[in-house]
């Protein structure tokens, strides 16, 4: 039920709603549609044209914040884990050394994944496979019905 209401809200941005009849009192929905059209005309062109730019910028900023921390945390956690293992098993300094390099590797992997696209998860997945999984959204709507 909740789902049905936003659909109307979303639809209003694209479609001017028709009047119920010409003779009767004007339908409030139609009047709202007309006002929206006028406002849109006043703004010049369709506002949705500038949207992709904005989204790209937002994603870029998010990516920047993400990869900065990714690498550092991987190295720090890896080294810390190695140090803890050394303390526990008394294998100093080998655990620290090995896990430091593993941490660097994991950090680089995370940064690479973050740069190659937010969509690449843990575990290597080739790019064309990701492209095919993008159509998952279309399938989604099918099984709801």
């Amino acid at each position: 039920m909740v789902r049905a209401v936003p659909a109307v809200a979303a639809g209003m941005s694209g479609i001017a709603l028709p009047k119920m009849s010409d003779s009767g009192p004007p339908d409030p929905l139609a009047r709202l549609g007309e006002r929206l059209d006028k406002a849109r005309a006043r703004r010049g062109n369709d506002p949705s044209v500038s949207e992709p730019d904005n989204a790209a910028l937002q994603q870029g900023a998010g990516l920047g914040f993400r990869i900065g921390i990714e690498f550092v945390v991987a190295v720090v956690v890896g080294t810390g884990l190695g140090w803890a293992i050394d303390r526990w098993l008394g294998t100093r300094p080998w655990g620290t050394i090995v896990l430091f390099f593993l941490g660097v590797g994991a950090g680089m992997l995370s940064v690479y994944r973050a740069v190659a696209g937010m969509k690449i998860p843990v575990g290597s997945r080739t790019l064309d496979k990701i492209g095919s999984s993008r159509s998952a959204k279309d399938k989604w709507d099918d099984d709801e019905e």
Partner: protein
Amino acid sequence: MAIELQPLEQFTIERLIPLHIGRLDVSYTNSALFMTIAVVLISALMLLGTRRAALVPGRWQSVAEMMYEFVADMVDTNAGHGARDFFPFVFTLFLFILFSNLIGLVPYSFTVTSHIIVTFALAAIVFIGVTIVGIVRHGFHFLRLFVPEGVPIVLLFLLVPIELLSYFIRPFTLSIRLFANMLAGHTMLAIFGGFAASVGFLAFFPLAINIALVGLELLVAVLQAYVFAILTCLYLRDALHLH
């Protein structure tokens, strides 16, 4: 010039209602108070927004619907097929972090998400939950997540530990990212605020910087909530659809 700069004072935890169960300190703190405020505000927005659901939404209903659609879209596109079961979880998580961040920007308030223990608890819930979902859905096959495809067996000895490490690092990156952003931003605001208080008539300059910083912090607050939620979605997709 007697004003001392104490930019970290704002993060102090205070016991508002001291409470002890056995040897456990479960006092109601200022942190808990602001969590309560966040939850009450979210509930109020959602309940009032959907109380009189109209075909043409009013202001509050629009806000509630926009948030719902935003998160539903995010889950749809990022978590993939069959992830709608987890929509309520992601929605709750997103709104809680968003409101905590935004409430923290109100002067004299407390930023819940500037404490690592809070963000780590949230990240740990995500991490443990996602791992359980993966194991329940796929059983033993879940371990395939750590084995890259098409790699020579010799290299697997190197790559599997790296994949394992990068999997177990997730709760740390998730929590540190949010906590560090909030902590740094609020410390910076307090430092420039302290400058403004101590330099007398030159206070205009630090104040101008502070105004710009508040704008930046507003962006960071929303962005970090978004990043936390979208990463949760991506982790969920990993667990739901192994490669």
